[in-house]
């Protein structure tokens, strides 16, 4: 039973953790080397890793997606998709895809004369199933070793902690004020039911007990 409990707990933590890791913004220091636009088929299960812009027909099975090609500070490539999130999930309310693509184009540089930039993005890169993180912002920085303070995530987790504490206190208050008194009432009601049953049993013992005792007097002695 204990293993089941830990397994369920682990599944919840991993699910919640990967959900947050996918949705929350992260920052990469990169050098933009190019941008391109490519037709993407959107009719298999990896559809969930692509956006659903407002102006797209629901029955459309492929569409053009813009990409930003970059090299990270460790020399490895990273390709971002550049899509509107619109009003949908995750709630980035990003509508400036075309502007972002222009900014990225503007920051293009070569290895000899690198221009470093911080890309804010969410999502995962996976080569096997061809999914890309969605870039939501880009800004030029001095060099590859800038310090980035993740303000949004700091506020987000502070708010999450506040929410958890608040919900816990609400639940405790609800239990103290509503559930416990109701249980106490039910307990009293149950006690009185039990008391009556006990009385009835005693009476029965009295009456039937006496009857039984009287009947027993007619039985043959063993």
């Amino acid at each position, binding site marked *: 039973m204990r293993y089941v409990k830990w397994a369920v707990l682990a599944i919840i933590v991993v699910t919640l953790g990967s959900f947050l890791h996918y949705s929350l913004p992260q920052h990469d220091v990169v050098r933009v080397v190019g941008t391109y636009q490519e037709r993407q088929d959107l009719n298999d299960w990896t559809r969930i890793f692509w956006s659903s812009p*407002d102006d797209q027909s629901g029955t459309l099975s492929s569409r053009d997606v813009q990409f930003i090609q970059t090299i990270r500070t460790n020399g490895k490539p990273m390709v971002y998709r550049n899509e509107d999130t*619109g*009003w*949908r999930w995750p*709630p*980035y*309310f*990003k*509508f*400036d895809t075309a*502007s972002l693509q222009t900014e990225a184009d503007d920051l293009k540089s070569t290895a000899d004369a690198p221009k470093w930039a911080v890309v804010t993005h969410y999502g995962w890169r996976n080569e096997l199933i061809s999914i890309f993180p969605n870039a*939501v*912002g880009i800004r030029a920085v001095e060099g590859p070793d800038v310090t980035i303070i993740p303000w949004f995530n700091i506020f987000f987790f502070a708010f999450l902690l506040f929410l958890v504490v608040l919900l816990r206190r*609400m639940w405790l*208050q*609800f239990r103290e*004020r509503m559930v416990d008194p109701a249980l106490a009432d039910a307990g009293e009601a149950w006690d009185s039911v039990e008391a009556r049953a006990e009385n009835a049993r005693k009476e029965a013992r009295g009456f039937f007990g006496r009857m039984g005792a009287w009947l027993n007097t007619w039985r043959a002695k063993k």
Partner: protein
Amino acid sequence: MIGFLRAIVIWAVIGAVAFFVLRIYGRSLRREALEKEWDATPGDGGQAAREAYIERGMEAYEGSLRNRLLVIIFVLPFIVIALLLYLMNYA
């Protein structure tokens, strides 16, 4: 456009749920505090006076600033959305 309306509706529902739950929680806290206040220094009149005291206190609480400020929770999601919209697209 549909997406915009849906987002408005969803966030309004979330705001409304948070508003009513916090309202109930705030009332519950105030009522408990009033009960404890009375029990610490009970006046004359027994149970009826205690209930009257609590009801008076609750009526005062309904009009209090703290209770009224809870309305902010209704508009909070929209302030956050407007802020995010600005920061994401125009900043």
